[in-house]
């Protein structure tokens, strides 16, 4: 059968470009399309699936990671914008043998049900502790408001974070 009409040529995609990131202490250079978010780069190209995709619009906090020690929503950052950054994900906070204080506190306080928001909650809480601004329960609640938990485990999340915040304050004093 002869072809009567020719399909339009495919629209050329923008070329990929290199981006160098340090992730959990390891240097990586990725060759990726510029529209790849940091979240997708972590999950799809580096197999670091601990960081979760919830809303993908910066509203739920499930994708929270630390960039140069500060918590951000990885779904709203393009990976190419993070050239040269040091990124810490839930996989880099502790290990199976040695959990981070927050990871242990979340277990001790039963601070999750389904667990989907937990990596983001813990990374966000680590960012909160790095910032050193929240001391009281009301302040921790306010500064954890960027992380939503659909199971409603908030009261136990609060007590887990408070335990580690309290320990940090003791060390400070």
């Amino acid at each position, binding site marked *: 059968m002869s072809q009567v009409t020719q399909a339009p040529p495919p629209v050329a995609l923008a070329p990929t470009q290199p981006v160098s990131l340090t992730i959990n202490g390891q240097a990586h250079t990725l060759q990726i399309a510029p529209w790849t978010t940091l979240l997708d780069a972590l999950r799809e190209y580096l197999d670091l699936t601990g960081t979760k995709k919830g809303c993908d619009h910066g509203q739920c*906090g499930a994708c929270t990671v630390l960039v140069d020690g500060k*918590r*951000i929503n990885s779904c709203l*950052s393009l990976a190419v914008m993070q050239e040269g950054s040091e990124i810490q994900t839930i996989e880099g906070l502790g290990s199976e043998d040695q959990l981070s204080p927050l990871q242990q506190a979340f277990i001790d306080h039963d601070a999750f049900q389904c667990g989907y928001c937990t990596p983001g909650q813990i990374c966000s809480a680590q960012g909160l502790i790095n910032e050193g*601004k929240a001391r009281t329960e009301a302040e921790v609640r306010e500064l954890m408001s960027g992380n939503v938990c659909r199971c409603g485990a908030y009261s136990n999340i609060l007590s887990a974070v408070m335990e580690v915040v309290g320990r940090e304050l003791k060390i400070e004093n």
Partner: protein
Amino acid sequence: MNSFTFTQAAAVAGAVQDKAAHEGSAYIGGGTNLVDLMKENVARPTHLIGLKKLGLDTIETLPDGGLRLGALASNADTAWHPEVEKRYPLLNQAILAGASPQLRNMATDGGNLMQRTRCYYFYDLATPCNKREPGSGCSAIGGYNRVCGILGTSDSCIATHPSDMCVALAALDTTVRVSGPNGERTIKFEDFHRLPGDHPERDNTLEPGELITGLDLPEKGFAKNFSYLKLRDRTSYAFALVSVAAALELDGNTIKDARLALGGVAHKPWRDKEAEAMLIGQPATADTFRRVAAKVLANAKGYGENTFKIELAKRAIVRALKQATEMKQEVDTNAFLNSNP
């Protein structure tokens, strides 16, 4: 998201040239709003110019006693900066009232001015919106407009500017520094954002290709008597239905100087200089505040679902001015919004 290319700018001049060389290009700071708009296909830039390597992220005292916020300083670093906390606590509180800690870490000060409305229809490609597609119509008029404006609206658009930070910047008489194809210039904050009129697609008065490089705060910071009151559907991490930045200079109980700006009610932070003038020389009492509130809302227009905002804004003005006078929150709304200097 559509296909686009990305370059990281190394200098302001290079960024401005790159912008001029690529039709349909856009600057990107923290990306918190633009990346979202690109995912929704509301923004479809063909080329992005990254700004994070420009520097411009410092906060420095100026020779005249003011403070310069670099356009690339993050909202969080700005809010918690010792000079901002000490001399411009109104700005500190307005920034901390907005977004979430993660977003404030990403978002830049210049980008905060450039964020776009959160009117539902602006994000919904299936509906007409004059701001997104000029000439297509306004779905919010006669539609779901609880979040929309009541002051300075037009038949084309009733969207609001969503920023908290900008409400404080307006009250504090900030100057916006920009760089563009024709060199550098400054824009008074009150002239930066515009009312919708017949061109709601234009949010501000930047010329094509211009880039914000910094924000200059004047020396006077009203650190003694101020209040940022934000009223919203939940206590944290929500846009304002109505917000009020109030700042007073008092001599005993007499008002010597006053600033008043509203958020959540208009296409720009709503500063009413006539209302401010009405406060000067008057006693700082509820009667004075009620007269001023009535004046600010005298020409307000409700659109059905948002008509409640007129009375809400009046009461919010009275309460914010009272809180600024007494330096006491009437109700604890937020752990970090206590007017305790």
